[in-house]
C-alpha cells in the first residue's frame, strides 16, 4: 500500500489535465449563468426592448430582421457559455502560474480564492465604475470610447490584483502579523479601487428621460447576478475537479 501514502501527499498536477478540468468547469459555469440569463436577465431586458420599440426608430440594431428575437435568446445563452469557457482557459493558465502562492490548503480552496479575485476584477469593479446598461441605453457614437473605458477598468483591476497580492506576499514573508497584513491588503485595495473610480473617465452616455430607473437597475442587478453565478460556479467546479486530480496524483 505504498501508493496510498503517496496519494495523500500533495502533488502538482500537470498543466494539460488541469486545463481540461478548468475548461469543463467553464462549460458548467457557462450553462449555469446562461440559464440565469434566460430566466432572470432576459426578463429585465424585455421592458428595455419594449422601450426601444416604442421609440420607433431605435438605433442601428432596430432593423431587427437580421437576427430574430428567439435567435437572440439562443445567442444570449451560447454567448454566455462561450465567455465562461474563455474565462476558464485564461484562469487555468493563471491558476497554474500562481497556485503555489494562493492561500488555501487544497485546490478547492485556492480555486475559490482565484475565482473570487476574477469576479472582483471582471464583474464587481466594472459594475462599480461602469455598470451594465440594458438595450435602449447607449449611444452608438460612443461605443469606441466606452469599450476603451471598459478595457481600462479591467486593466486597472488586473494591476490592482497583482500589486496587492505582491504586497501581501512581501509583508507575509517579512513575518508581519497576519492581521496587519490583512489590514494593509484591504487598505491598498480600497486605495487602488478608489483611484480607478476617480481617475478613469466616466461612461459618457446619458440615460434617456424615457427610461425608468427600475428598468436600468433591474437589469444591472440581473447582470451582476449572472456574473456572480458564472464565477462562483467556475471556482467551485474547477476547485472540485482539480482537487480530485491533485489527490489522484
Amino acid at each position, binding site marked *: 500500500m505504498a501508493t496510498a501514502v503517496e496519494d495523500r*501527499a*500533495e*502533488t*502538482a*498536477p*500537470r*498543466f494539460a489535465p488541469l*486545463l481540461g478540468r478548468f475548461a469543463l468547469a467553464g462549460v458548467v459555469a457557462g450553462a449555469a449563468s446562461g440559464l440565469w*440569463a434566460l430566466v432572470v*436577465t*432576459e426578463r429585465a*431586458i424585455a421592458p428595455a426592448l419594449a422601450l426601444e420599440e416604442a421609440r420607433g426608430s431605435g*438605433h442601428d*440594431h432596430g432593423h431587427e430582421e*437580421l*437576427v430574430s428575437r428567439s*435567435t*437572440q*435568446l*439562443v*445567442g*444570449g*445563452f*451560447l*454567448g*454566455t457559455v*462561450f*465567455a465562461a*469557457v*474563455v474565462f476558464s*482557459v*485564461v484562469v*487555468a*493558465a493563471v491558476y*497554474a502560474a500562481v*497556485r*503555489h502562492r*494562493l492561500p488555501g*490548503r487544497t*485546490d478547492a480552496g*485556492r480555486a475559490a480564492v482565484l475565482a473570487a479575485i476574477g469576479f472582483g476584477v471582471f464583474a464587481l469593479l*466594472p*459594475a462599480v465604475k*461602469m*455598470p*451594465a*446598461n*440594458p*438595450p435602449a441605453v*447607449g449611444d452608438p457614437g460612443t*461605443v469606441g470610447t*466606452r*469599450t476603451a*473605458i*471598459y478595457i481600462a477598468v479591467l486593466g486597472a483591476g488586473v494591476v490592482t490584483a497583482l500589486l496587492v497580492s505582491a504586497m501581501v506576499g512581501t509583508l507575509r514573508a517579512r513575518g508581519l502579523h497576519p492581521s496587519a497584513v490583512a489590514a494593509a491588503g484591504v487598505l491598498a485595495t480600497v486605495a487602488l479601487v478608489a483611484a480607478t473610480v476617480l481617475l478613469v473617465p466616466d461612461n459618457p452616455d446619458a440615460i434617456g428621460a424615457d427610461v425608468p430607473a427600475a428598468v436600468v437597475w433591474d*437589469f444591472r442587478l440581473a*447582470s*451582476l447576478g*449572472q*456574473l456572480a453565478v458564472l464565477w462562483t460556479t467556475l471556482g467551485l467546479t474547477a476547485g472540485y475537479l482539480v482537487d480530485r486530480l491533485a489527490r489522484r496524483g
Partner: protein
Amino acid sequence: MTSAQHTRTRTAPAIAVPAWAWALALLALFALYLVAQDDGAVLASAGDLAHEFFHDARHSLGMPCH
C-alpha cells in the same frame, strides 16, 4: 510532524505553465473580443450577424454595446 511534512502541507508545488497555454489564453480573449466587442471592423459583414446573435450576451455580461 517533521518540518518537511509541515512545509509540504503549507505550500503547494509550482506547476510549469507551457508557453502555448498563454498563447491559447490570448487567442481565447481575442475570440471573445471579436464576438463581444467588434462591430464588424475585423469580421466585416459576418461581424454584423455575430454582433446581433450575441447581442443579449454582450449586454448581460456588462460589456459595452451600440
